[in-house]
């Protein structure tokens, strides 16, 4: 009887999760930093909202705070070193040895990283949520927050898939670390991580909605800030398919190159 999902997926997921949970100190430090970030960013926006008569493009103090809680939770759940690490692994030969395994390289990597992001998502949500509860109280809509919950792992998955597609550049260029900076900043602005996309001027907003980055922060944030827009989840799923295909294509082409050219 063929399994629907190959066995290695489960193993990879739990491996990733376990790795993160095995370093509770690191998780704790991450949570502390997270509290600082959410605290700082949400304060910024609350001051802005206050100065504009209590509402800015449909966001009040409470909803803008919860927006930041969720956008940061999603964004920070993915390791900030991910692209650099992939690049290092490609250049260092680790990927070459992974190709000897009877499972797709990019598949395993994505699964492990996704597994690792899950405990971080939980930790971030707890940390950021605490900050929000203390400063503005509960979320504007519990229903919307429930919708945001599946959006979080979807956001992390999209982020990881895109990162792997991006980092695949390292099969050809050796130094992917610099690509990471650019990638992160794209999520910054076009992903709606630090700025709710409603605040961004028209032309930029249109571009942002057409790019995949909004799945990685904006979607969970928009939902969690009290806006019931379940169609956003479909957008995430659609982009996830596209991005995973892109990542697979890059890695397959790259692996072929490794086989031809050597490590």
């Amino acid at each position, binding site marked *: 009887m063929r399994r629907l999902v190959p066995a290695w997926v489960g193993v990879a997921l739990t491996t990733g999760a376990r790795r993160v949970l095995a370093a509770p*100190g690191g998780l704790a*430090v991450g949570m*502390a*930093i997270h509290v*600082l*970030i959410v*605290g*700082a*960013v949400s*304060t*910024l926006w609350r*001051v*802005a909202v206050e*100065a*504009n008569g209590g509402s*800015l*493009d449909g966001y009040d103090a409470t909803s803008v705070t919860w927006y930041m809680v969720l956008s940061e939770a999603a964004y920070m759940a993915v390791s900030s070193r991910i692209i650099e690490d992939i690049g290092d692994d490609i250049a260092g030969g680790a990927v070459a040895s992974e190709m000897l395994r009877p499972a797709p390289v990019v598949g395993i990597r994505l699964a492990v990283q996704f597994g690792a992001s899950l405990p971080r998502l939980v930790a971030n949500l707890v940390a950021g949520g605490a900050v929000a509860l203390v400063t503005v109280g509960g979320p504007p809509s519990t229903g919307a927050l429930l919708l945001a919950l599946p959006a979080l792992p979807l956001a992390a998955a999209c982020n990881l898939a895109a990162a792997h597609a991006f980092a695949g550049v390292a099969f050809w260029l*050796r*130094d992917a*670390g*610099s*690509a990471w*900076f*650019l990638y*992160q*900043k*794209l999520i*910054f*602005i076009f992903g709606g991580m*630090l*700025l709710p996309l409603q*605040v*961004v*001027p028209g032309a*930029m907003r249109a571009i942002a909605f057409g790019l995949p980055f909004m799945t990685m922060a904006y979607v969970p944030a928009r939902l969690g800030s009290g806006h019931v827009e379940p169609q956003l989840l479909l957008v995430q799923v659609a982009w996830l398919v596209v991005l995973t295909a892109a990542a697979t294509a890059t890695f397959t082409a790259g692996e072929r190159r490794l086989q031809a050219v050597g490590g």
Partner: protein
Amino acid sequence: MRGFAATLRGAFAEALTNRRAFGAQVALMFGNDLAWCAFWVLFFDRAGNLRGWDGTRALLLLSVFATSAGLTLGVFANVRHVGQMASDGRLDAVLALPVSPLPHLLVRQVRTVNLGDVLFGLGLFLVAGDPDPGRFGIYLVGSLASTGLMLGFLITAGSLAFFVGSGETGEAGFHALLLLSNYPADFFGGLTKLVLYTVIPAAFVTAVPAKLVDEFDPGLAALLLGASAAFLAAGWATFTFGLRRYSSGSVWTQA
């Protein structure tokens, strides 16, 4: 002093040997900084003038930050690793030389990528900071004071590893300071604001120098220089006392 200069020269020479990736990395550092510019411009464009801060002053803040962070992490690249080196026992190589360990340690490594940030900060000031000789002078001195502050703070945070045994205090301090320095301190109230002027001096690192360029106040300027000196002294003291503990062997996990 000759030895210090020689070490610095050696560090630069070594950093420049990796020229291939350098250009790409600097370009992307620029991109990183530009994204922050875009954020502030968009933010203040929408939110308007807030507590004395607007887009122009925010860009001033960013230019000071890029300059001082670039100098700190570029020229004194090892300041980020003091904690880890202390808890790993890697200071022995420095102790084998007839030099004062802290300065030598700090400049032993140079990261030219961060020097790109310095250029960016300078460029940003010239473009958006409404430069005149007076403002430029304040920006320069302010950035240098800010660099001293950052150095002092990071050395102190890292040197705690001598006492706590873990190199993570340095990393945590690093992230906290760099994070909070990105925001104008005036946005925060009460206790947080106090913290930003004292324990994690993010306000002095960016907000104060930026404000001084726009509205020079001798009292505030004196406070900035004083804070810088104080943190440098704290760094020196923590490291020196820490080194004594290192020398007693109590820092190591393996003999």
